Structure formats: structure tokens, C-alpha cells
């Protein structure tokens, strides 16, 4: 298949993957241009589902490296497993060995659980799935699963390393009621969180409940028990596990969330009484007791247990799963038991969580106002523009940028309306994260120096820099700093202490450098991305766990209670307050994309910011003027360069460059403008700019449902641009765009796949390639004013144009055949043009003289085929190989230069959104 067909196949494949059964079949059959593509897509989809992991990794055949053996004996210290380096042996459990390990990338210690592998491969597949599900759990009382590492037959789980004592240690003696309640609440909240997400622990026992020195309970090994515990009946049962099993598990009935409650009840009973209520002389005796014995009330033994607690614990031990309370009910009842020494932070957290749950459930959805936002690039510097910050009045944007010559990042300021950017800092150390002071007179920024970040302040028009603080360089790309509303203090993120990983927010006085901690994240959580609300009263921030998952929280700057503002629990990229202070704007990862969402802070549902299809990784909102700016990064970067045509000797330069795809460029007939396709605003859209690259204008905004537009073609009178556009649901059609304004109008379809338009010399007709009528692609033509398409070619045709004398249609064909065919427009047989046999890609353009094309070769050359005489001449050498799928060259009508699409190193660029409400 040709790459064009592969590209089509990919689009069909991606959409079909979201469908199943007959629907999938039907979609593929309708969407595929022919049976070959359909079969290929079907076969590939089958391949995903039939291969064990969709990966089909080659077996290790001959290796210079020792394979990872199943850890029958412990791994020596210093062994690396993935990127982790084993630093110690923690213990052996039923599931395998646990090691402490160092993660050099994130410079942290983790626990590494290396799983003893059973013979069945399906076990590990299921197990990995469970572990992944558990890794989605984000709760201060649940041990965070960082990742699952797989190596050959061995599976290891990297998780939060917890230092502390297991509750096993406390089970032999009667524990005070306060402990019971404080520990119980935390466990109940952890279970409630997991159960709400459909994850059952399956193996609650004291060994899996860790008490840290700071009073936190951490529940270990969520969801991991089922697949690895299959053979545990054979051993170790006398010790513990059996004694915490629910009746349904012993009877091999389905295990549910209620089973966790039973096991949890046993743990509570044991902590309260000092003994397991079902402790028998033998496994058989224990089993009989679990199935038949109703434990005696607790006060009989201890005398100090509140009646409420006794009733609660025994209700948890009900033989009937349906009669047991839920984890949330257990939590609520434990909260209701008064305890003299309340752990304040835990209590506050629980209250806030409950409050959010109640609000979230009770309010109606608030609709965001209809948005007709306009997106335009802020600056067109070549390189990575990062970390935009708006001045409060919306007039200027500060950003960090590493220039073409100087690879060090420095602070730049640009007026939103004017041209040109001003560099404010210089020097050898990288400067980044500029933030305008509220009055716009100063800029704060960070300067990286030997593992530390210096907090710097300077006048926003340039001038003397002053250091007013220093923080640990945490090597995260999160935003770390903001001003308070009076401009007297900065709020910065820094490590809670040198020895701890957690990050909290500190207030630093710009004048005196005095600092004070303002947020106090629970252990395992960090507070990042500070942003002060527009009224200046509230400090908002992202409270997240190590992997970046969490919510927006807020604390009054004058002091007061911490509140959670969102309950999405997603992986964050950035957030800030909307200008009205009623909503927050959050970019978090969903389906691998970082889209921007608007979330009301008084509850209510989040909504995607309409019209903004870019991924948003950094953002800043102006307080005035309904302006927003954001930074976005793309994965591959095709840019449009301008090269001189002899005899011109101008230096080649990138003319149209963004972090997204820029290609399909076309000079307007008078040479004053360039139309091109770009994905800089998300989906591929048609853009226009002046011939010098300035005055960028987005001409299409097909943002509904993932439309893309490409293949722009100017009408010879320069008034119209024809383009093709498709959505995942429908095949491509031809559209016309009036260059002077207005909505694009549909010229063909919907239905068949119509692609790559071009114009007749008189601007009356549009040629395009289509599969209408079945069979291979043929060239068709349709009146530009609208009407029925007429088939032009009979033996295939992909991309064509009329010769300058309007006597011939020249066209390429799809498939393996390279070269051009020529057909008399007045009727007649097609003939192959032998001089153009080498044209195998879409890097060509017709001009009045002939056809310019890139001859594919190890050293690519731009050549010209002359209509008159038929000869081919070499024009100029090209420094970079073409990318074959897109139209890659366009020749300026004045003959001085040509544009060439080439792959460059990825850049990022900043976009300004206006009319942003």
C-alpha cells in the first residue's frame, strides 16, 4: 500500500477501534476506499485482540545480558530493575519479595515488590491489570502504586515506600479507643475511596495496614491479592490470612466490597479486644468459627468501648454480606464517635472531602457561556517559547525562551499588539517562569543555579535584578510561583524540609526575604502551581500525589480553613483562576491529551473550553480584556522554510514555524499571500499569512467533532481557496472558502471520499480526486458554483492541474506508479510523461514554465520539467529529505524563492486567545 493509503487506513483503524462487532464491520466497509484497505484494517484490529498483549515482543533469543531470573533468592543490593536500583531487602511475602529501591530519575526511594511468577501467563496479565487499576487510586491512606515493571517472566511493582509499623504489632494487646477510632477512620476512608472506584482490596489484614510515625495509616496492596493469593491456602494460613477471610470467601462465593468490610471488622475487633474473634486451634476450627460464630460484644472484655463502636464492629462482622455497612457508612459512624485527641489534619481533610461530595451531588450543571474565541500566535520565534504570564491589564506577555544562537533560556516580554519581543535577562544561568507583579511594574522569575532556584525580581521594563529568596530545584515543570495581590510577597513552592519529598507553598517577602509556610500538605501530597484568586483573598494550588494526580485546593491568605475546589482527581498540567474568580481553568490529562477544562468552584460540572483544541501545558489569564495565553507542545514538527531560487542568494529561513504541523503551503496567484495547513490550533486547519510569514489568520475552525482541513488550493483569480476536510465519522469532501471572509461552503459530498482539489485556469471548475463510483481514485471535476461532479480520468488519477494553455490535464496516480500522465482536455487518450517518471512523492508544483519537482534521491534536488520542449533541468540542491505524504513545495510567482516543508526539531509556541470569557 502507498503511504497515502496507510494514512487513510490509520484514520479508519483509529475510529474502528472505538467500535465493536457489526458496527465496526459496517464502519470499516463504508469508510475504506477499497477492500484491500478494509481487509488490512480488520486484520490489524484482530491482531490487537488476538495477540496476548498487543505487543508481540520478540523472544529473547541470544543475549549479552543476564535475563531477570524469578527471585527465588533475593536480588543483591545494587541490582537494577528497570530504572530502579535495589538498595535493600525489606521482606518476603506471599506475593514475592519486597525491596527498597532508588529511582534515580525522580531521586526518590520506592518500595519494589518483585512478584513470584506463577506458570500461567494469564495470571500476570490479570495481575498487571489489577495493579494498574490500583495505581489510579489517589488517597492519603492508600499506598501509591507508581508503576508496574515487567521484565520477561518477572513482574515488579514500584510503589510508595512506607516506613512504619504494621498493625500486626498492635493486634496482640488491647488498644485505646482513640487509636481504634483514628486508625479505623483512615482505613474506612481508604476503603470507601477504593470501593467507589470499583476496586476491592481482597486481603485486608493487619499486615497490610501500616502505621507511620506521624499517625497516618497506609493501606498496602490494593487489589493485588486475588491473582497472587490463589495458592495461599496451602501455607501461611495458620499465621493470619485465614483469620480475616469473610464467610463468602471461605465458601468460594464472589468477593465484594462487603468482604473487605468483614476483614476490616475482624481487624478492629482484634485491636479492641486484643484477640482475633475467630482464632481457632486449627484451620478447620477457624473456618467453622468464621462461618458460624457470632462474636461476643466487645465491652465484655474491655469495658471501655462505646456502645456505638461495639455495634458498628459487630455489624461489620455480619455473616450476610448484604447486612454489613458500607465503608462510607463505617467512616461516617467512626467520625461520629467523639475522641479526645483528634488528629486535626485528618479530620479537616475528611470534612472537606465530605463537603465536596455533598455539593457535587446536589447542584445542577452550570453551562458555560457560548464561546467564539479567537486564537492567534503570540510571537513567531523559532524555538521553545515557554511559560507565558499575562500582565494584569492584558497588554503584555512575559515568557521564557531559548534563542536560536543562545541556547540558555532567558526572560522575554512582548506587547500583545505590537511586534517584536524584548529580552530582559542575559547571562550564563537559565532564567524561567516569569510572573508579572499585579501592578505590572515588576517581574519575578526563577534562575537555576547548582540545584537551587534563585527567586529573582526585576523591573518589567528591564533593569536591576535582585534575589529575594531561594528554593530547592525540584526539576518539575509545574508552575512554582505567583505574587500576592498587594505585590509585596511571592508565593513559591518548595520542599517542606530538605529531607522530605513533599512540597508546600511558602510566602516570601520581596522586601525582606522573610518566609513563612502557608500550606501544609498531608504526607505523600505536594502543593504546586500557586495562583491567587482575582479578589486577592484566596490562594489556590494543586494538591497532588507524586504522579501529578490531584485536585485544586484553596486556603484564605488571611488564614482559615483549607478547602478542596475540585474533585476530578486527574493528572494535572496546569491550572489558574478564570478572570471572574468563579471558575478555575484546568488542563489535565484525559485519553493522553491535555485539554483545557473550565470547572465552577461552587460545584457543578467541568466543561471543555469550546473552540480550543490545542493541548494546553501552560497558561495565564489576563485580569482584563478577556485574554488568555497558553503554551502547547506537539509531537512532531513540520515547518515551512523559504529557500532562494537562483539567481537569488537569500539565506534559507523558516517562514512558517510552530510546534505543530505546518505544511501544504501554497502561494496565492499574485504571490502576496500563502495558504497552508497547520495543526497549531489543534486539528488541522487552513491558515493564511503574508508572503513574509506575518499576519497569520486562521481561515477554518472546524472544531466540532474532530474535523481536519488540508490541501488548500487558490483559485487563479485569488478569491477562493478550495480545500478538503474530513471527520473521523465521514469521508473527506471538498469545500470552498472565500478569502475575504465568511464560512466555508461545501462543494461535494458528503458520502464519497473527495480529496486534493485544484482549479481550472478559468476558475470555473474544481478538479478533485474521488472514489465515487467505486474502484480506484479518479479525477473528477465539479463547477465551482456548485453542481454535479463529472468524471475526468478513467485509469486512475490522484492530483491534477490544467496546463497553462488549458489543453491538457496533467495528473499523478495513486499506488506504486510514480510519474505524471497527460490527457487532452478536449478528449482523447492519456499518455505517460516519461520525463516526469521520477516524481514519486507530492513534492511538486506546476508553474507557467513547467513542473517543479523534488527528485527523490539520496541527495534531493529541485528540478524543473519544461512544458516547452519537455526537458528537465536541475534547479537547486536541497539540504533536507522531503516527507512524502504532504504537498511539500510551492514556488513564488516572482520566481525568486520557493517554500519547502521539512521536519525540524520540535518547538513550542505561545498562543493568545481573545474574546475569552
Amino acid at each position, binding site marked *: *500500500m502507498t*503511504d497515502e493509503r*496507510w*494514512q487513510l487506513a*490509520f484514520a479508519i*483503524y*483509529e475510529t474502528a*477501534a472505538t467500535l465493536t462487532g457489526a458496527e465496526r464491520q459496517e464502519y470499516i466497509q463504508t469508510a475504506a476506499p477499497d477492500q484491500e484497505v478494509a481487509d*488490512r484494517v480488520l*486484520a*490489524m484490529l484482530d*491482531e*490487537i485482540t488476538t*495477540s496476548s*498483549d*498487543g*505487543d*508481540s*515482543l*520478540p523472544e*529473547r*533469543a*541470544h543475549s*549479552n*545480558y*543476564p535475563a*531477570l531470573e524469578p527471585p527465588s533468592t533475593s536480588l*543483591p543490593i*545494587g*541490582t*537494577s*530493575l*528497570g530504572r530502579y*536500583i535495589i538498595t535493600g531487602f525489606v521482606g518476603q511475602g506471599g506475593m514475592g519479595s519486597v525491596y527498597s529501591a532508588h529511582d534515580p530519575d525522580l531521586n526518590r526511594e520506592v518500595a519494589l515488590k518483585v512478584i513470584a511468577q506463577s506458570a500461567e501467563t494469564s495470571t500476570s496479565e490479570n495481575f*498487571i491489570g489489577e495493579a*494498574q487499576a490500583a495505581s489510579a487510586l489517589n488517597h492519603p491512606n492508600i499506598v501509591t502504586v507508581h*508503576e*508496574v*515493571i*515487567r*521484565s*520477561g517472566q518477572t513482574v515488579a511493582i514500584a510503589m510508595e515506600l512506607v516506613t512504619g509499623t504494621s498493625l500486626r504489632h498492635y493486634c496482640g494487646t488491647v488498644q485505646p479507643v482513640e487509636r481504634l477510632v483514628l486508625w479505623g477512620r483512615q482505613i474506612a476512608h481508604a476503603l470507601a475511596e477504593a470501593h467507589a472506584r470499583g476496586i476491592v482490596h481482597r486481603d485486608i489484614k493487619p499486615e497490610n495496614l501500616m502505621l507511620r510515625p506521624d499517625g497516618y495509616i497506609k493501606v498496602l496492596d490494593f487489589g493485588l491479592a486475588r491473582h497472587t493469593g490463589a495458592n495461599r491456602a496451602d501455607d501461611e494460613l495458620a499465621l493470619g490470612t485465614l483469620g480475616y477471610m469473610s464467610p463468602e470467601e471461605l465458601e468460594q462465593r464472589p468477593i465484594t466490597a462487603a468482604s473487605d468490610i468483614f476483614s476490616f471488622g475482624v481487624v478492629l475487633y482484634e485491636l479492641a479486644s486484643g484477640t482475633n474473634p475467630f482464632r481457632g486451634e486449627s484451620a478447620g476450627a477457624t473456618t467453622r468459627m468464621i462461618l458460624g460464630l457470632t462474636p461476643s460484644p466487645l465491652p465484655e472484655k474491655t469495658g471501655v468501648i462505646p456502645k456505638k463502636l461495639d455495634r458498628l464492629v459487630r455489624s461489620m462482622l455480619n455473616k450476610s454480606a448484604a447486612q454489613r455497612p458500607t465503608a462510607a457508612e463505617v467512616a461516617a459512624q467512626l467520625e461520629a464517635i467523639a475522641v479526645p485527641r483528634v488528629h486535626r489534619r485528618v479530620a479537616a481533610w475528611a470534612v472537606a472531602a465530605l463537603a465536596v461530595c455533598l455539593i457535587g451531588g446536589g447542584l445542577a450543571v452550570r453551562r458555560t457561556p457560548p464561546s467564539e474565541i479567537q486564537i492567534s500566535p503570540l510571537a513567531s520565534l523559532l524555538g*521553545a517559547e515557554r511559560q507565558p504570564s499575562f500582565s494584569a491589564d492584558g497588554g503584555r506577555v512575559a515568557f521564557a525562551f531559548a534563542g536560536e544562537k543562545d541556547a540558555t533560556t532567558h526572560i522575554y516580554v512582548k506587547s500583545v499588539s505590537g511586534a517584536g519581543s524584548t529580552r530582559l535577562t542575559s547571562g550564563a544561568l537559565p532564567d524561567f517562569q516569569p510572573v508579572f507583579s499585579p501592578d505590572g511594574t515588576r517581574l519575578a522569575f526563577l534562575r537555576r543555579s547548582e540545584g537551587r532556584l534563585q527567586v529573582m525580581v526585576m523591573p518589567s521594563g528591564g533593569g536591576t535584578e535582585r534575589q529575594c529568596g531561594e528554593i530547592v530545584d525540584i526539576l518539575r515543570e509545574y508552575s512554582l510561583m505567583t505574587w500576592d495581590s498587594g505585590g509585596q510577597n511571592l508565593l513559591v513552592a518548595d520542599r517542606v524540609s530538605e529531607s522530605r519529598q513533599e512540597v508546600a507553598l511558602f510566602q516570601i517577602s520581596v522586601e525582606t526575604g522573610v518566609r513563612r509556610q502557608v500550606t501544609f500538605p498531608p504526607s505523600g501530597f505536594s502543593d504546586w502551581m500557586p495562583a491567587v484568586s482575582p479578589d486577592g483573598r484566596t490562594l489556590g494550588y494543586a494538591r497532588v500525589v507524586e504522579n501529578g494526580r490531584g485536585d485544586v485546593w484553596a486556603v484564605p491568605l488571611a488564614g482559615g480553613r483549607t478547602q478542596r475546589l475540585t474533585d476530578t482527581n486527574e493528572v494535572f498540567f496546569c491550572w489558574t483562576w478564570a478572570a471572574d474568580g468563579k471558575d478555575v481553568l484546568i488542563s489535565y490529562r484525559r*485519553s*493522553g491529551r*491535555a485539554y483545557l477544562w473550565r470547572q465552577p468552584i461552587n460545584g457543578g460540572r467541568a466543561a471543555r473550553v469550546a473552540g480550543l483544541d490545542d493541548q494546553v501545558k501552560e497558561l495565564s489569564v489576563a485580569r482584563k480584556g478577556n485574554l488568555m495565553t497558553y503554551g502547547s*507542545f*506537539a*509531537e*512532531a*514538527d513540520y515547518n515551512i522554510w523559504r529557500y532562494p531560487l537562483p539567481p537569488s542568494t537569500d539565506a534559507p529561513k523558516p517562514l512558517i514555524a510552530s510546534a505543530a504541523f505546518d505544511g501544504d503551503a501554497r502561494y496565492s496567484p499574485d504571490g502576496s499571500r500563502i495558504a497552508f495547513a497547520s495543526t497549531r490550533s489543534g486539528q488541522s486547519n487552513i491558515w493564511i499569512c503574508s508572503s513574509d510569514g506575518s499576519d497569520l489568520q486562521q481561515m477554518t475552525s472546524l472544531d466540532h467533532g474532530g474535523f481536519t482541513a488540508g490541501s488548500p488550493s487558490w483559485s487563479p483569480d485569488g478569491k477562493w481557496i478550495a480545500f478538503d476536510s474530513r471527520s473521523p465519522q465521514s469521508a473527506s469532501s471538498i469545500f470552498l472558502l472565500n478569502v475575504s471572509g465568511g464560512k466555508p461552503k461545501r462543494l461535494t459530498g458528503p458520502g464519497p471520499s473527495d480529496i486534493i482539489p485544484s482549479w481550472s485556469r478559468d476558475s470555473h471548475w474544481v478538479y478533485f480526486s474521488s472514489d465515487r463510483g467505486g474502484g480506484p481514485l479518479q479525477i473528477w471535476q465539479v463547477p465551482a458554483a456548485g453542481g454535479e461532479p463529472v468524471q475526468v480520468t478513467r485509469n486512475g488519477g490522484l492530483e491534477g492541474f490544467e496546463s497553462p494553455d488549458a489543453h491538457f490535464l496533467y495528473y499523478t496516480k495513486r499506488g506504486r506508479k510514480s510519474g505524471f500522465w497527460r490527457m487532452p482536455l478536449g478528449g482523447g487518450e492519456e499518455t505517460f510523461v516519461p520525463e516526469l517518471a521520477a516524481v514519486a512523492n507530492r513534492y511538486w508544483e506546476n508553474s507557467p514554465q513547467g513542473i517543479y519537482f523534488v527528485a527523490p534521491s*539520496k541527495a534531493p534536488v529541485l528540478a524543473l520539467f519544461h512544458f516547452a520542449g519537455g526537458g528537465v533541468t536541475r534547479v537547486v540542491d536541497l539540504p533536507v*529529505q522531503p*516527507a*512524502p*505524504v*504532504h504537498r511539500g513545495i510551492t514556488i513564488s510567482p516572482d520566481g525568486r524563492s520557493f517554500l519547502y516543508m521539512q*521536519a525540524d*526539531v*520540535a518547538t513550542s509556541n505561545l498562543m493568545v486567545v481573545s474574546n475569552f470569557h
Partner: protein
Amino acid sequence: MSPIFIFFVQGKIVSTSTTPATLQPDTVASLMASFRTGDQTAAGRLVEIFYPELRRIAVARMRAERPGHTLQPTALVHQLYLELVKVKALRSTSSGGADEKKAFLGLAAYLMKRLLIHHARSLSKRAQKIDLPDFPTPESGTEDALIEIDGTLNRLAAINPALRRVVELRVFEGLTRDEIAREIGCGTATVARHWTFARNWLEDAFIGTSHQ
């Protein structure tokens, strides 16, 4: 044409050492010398040595860059070349090592192409049976082969950039599906889907060129 074995490990490396032990200047230098007299065994051994080194550089480069950075085989190979010159395993071109550089680049390109072929769908199943091109001879190695690799990856990226990225992470970095998912920030199902597609395309691409 001669049948060639595939030696490369695609699982995770477990090693008690964190520094590369394979990059012994003396070994490389003497193998290069043998290779340049036409010793094909030396060529095979060098390819074996270069693979983990290229992968190490690939990993380091990807880590140093922002997510979304595209790996460039040419840059990768040149970095390894410079490192080898630095440890004096190869002579620099300025001290008469121009042929050595050429030979090295040829070997590296050959290695990359073989890796890609190795991962191509169905070809991988037949990897030990199909005929792969001979090792490059000292004379045949040029940068053209590298450009060809670049071109192949560019073509794949043109279909969809995500496909190229999965192939790079899988083939040159040796990451697992889960690691790729983490790296890219998407689900493992997406990685599996893209990987399956990319392997099918690679198969097509190489079947298409194997008769040249």
C-alpha cells in the same frame, strides 16, 4: 545474501553495573581493524556492542528532552561516534580516521535498519529465516543508509507522529508497552494499537524495499 541471527534483547536490562561495560576502547578498536580487513564476524560483534550503546544514548537523549521530542537516528549515531572518538576507540577524521567513520556509520545504519526489520510484523516471526542484507563492507558504509532510516521514520511520522514515537521508544529505547504509555501519556491500549499498526506498516515498507 546470508542468513543472519538477531541477537538483540528487547526485555529490560538487568545488570549489576550502571556503567556500560561493553564500550571497551581496545575491543572496539581491534574489532574495527578486523572489520576493515573484511572480517564479517567482527562486523557482527561490533553491531552487538553498538546496540546497547545506541540505546543508552537514545534513552538519555529522550530523558533530557521534553516529552514529545523526536529522536533522530542520525544525531544518535553521530553522538555515539563522538563518544567512541573521545574514548579513543575510533580515530577522529582529523587524525586519518575518515574511513573508520564511514565504516562505523555504515554499521550503525545497518544495525538500525535491522532493528526495524526485526520488529516489523511477520518479519519478526521469520526473523531467523529470512535473508537480511549482508553486513556492510568497510567500503559500502556511508551516511546514505542513515538517511534512509530517517526517511523511513519520517514517512511513518507523516502517517501519524504517534506511530513514529511508539516505534522509537519500542525499537531504539527498548521500552515496554507500559513504559511507552507512561512516556507518551496515553493508555496502554493505545500503545498496543499504534504498535500493531506501525509493525504492519514496517512490514510493508521493508517488503517493498527488500527487492531493490
